[in-house]
């Protein structure tokens, strides 16, 4: 199935939960990534029980701390 991840079409060969998606897509520092699916924030506690569905728009939002 295809999803849109951070603006790009990504093909997944099977159904999976958010935590597995973070792994297979090699998200940096996955324990500190905010995940939005179709414009809804997903609780970190629900990463293991929230499925990714065909056509979902998924965004990984990363901490970016610099500025000085």
């Amino acid at each position: 199935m295809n999803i849109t991840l951070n603006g790009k079409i990504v093909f997944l060969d099977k159904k999976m939960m958010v935590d597995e998606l973070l792994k297979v897509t090699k998200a940096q520092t996955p324990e500190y990534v905010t995940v939005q699916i179709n414009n809804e924030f997903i609780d970190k506690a629900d990463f293991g029980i929230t499925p990714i569905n065909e056509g979902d728009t998924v965004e990984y939002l990363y901490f970016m701390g610099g500025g000085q």
Partner: protein
Amino acid sequence: MEITNEQMERYSRQIILQGVGGKGQKKLLQAKILIIGTGGLGSPASMYLAAAGIGTIGLVDFDNVDLSNLQRQIVHSTNDIGRPKVLSAKESITAINPDVDVVTYQKIVNAGNLKNIIKDRDYDFILDCTDNFPVKFLINDACVLLQKPFSHAGILGFKGQTMTYVPGRGPCYRCVFQTPPPSDAVPSCKQAGVLGVLGGIIGTLQATEAIKYILGLGNLLTGYLLIYDALTMDFRKVKLSRNKKCAVCGEKPTITKLIDYEQPKCEAKR
């Protein structure tokens, strides 16, 4: 207040803009903007806001200018090494535009003083130009609690991101990033480096949002996180929704006063 002939000439390129005019220029001259951090982001932001004729600019920074700052912190010069950043920045922006009343706060921002700094001149808009998460969350919470609009930004490596909070008009920073990561869990600029121009690009976007807010022009980055990647030259606007469970602006807020999170040791002394 009346605009003088000299001001008319100084600001002529923006006064002729549709939606600005003499009326808009007066709004800018009467506006009060607080810039927290006079480094990579705060340098260009303060210079453009001063040039645009923002009447009052508050600058907050406890630090002194260091040689390693000059690669990106363009409001400071080689001659300023060792001097307080707020004084060096004040001199630079006063040289750009003597119209600006520059207020300096040479302080480490904390839960005890931030609200008072914002209330000192009742600032209209705040720019988070800091480099660490504890202070970023502090600024967010203070602005939500005081119902003040602010621009958040961060830069790292070849990337930067920014969003704008306006009370009642979209999510806050904590809606997106619930709580600061443990120190050293995510890389800082000091560890990972940053391309100096990133401060220019993102800091100038922050100044743009402040000017638009004061003038009431266009659409702000409320409800969006703008992410910029200098290597691919992609600007992405990610739509954000409000988080009903947000601890400070959600339906049942648990944060009703400011919290001091522990600062990473390597950055606390900077």
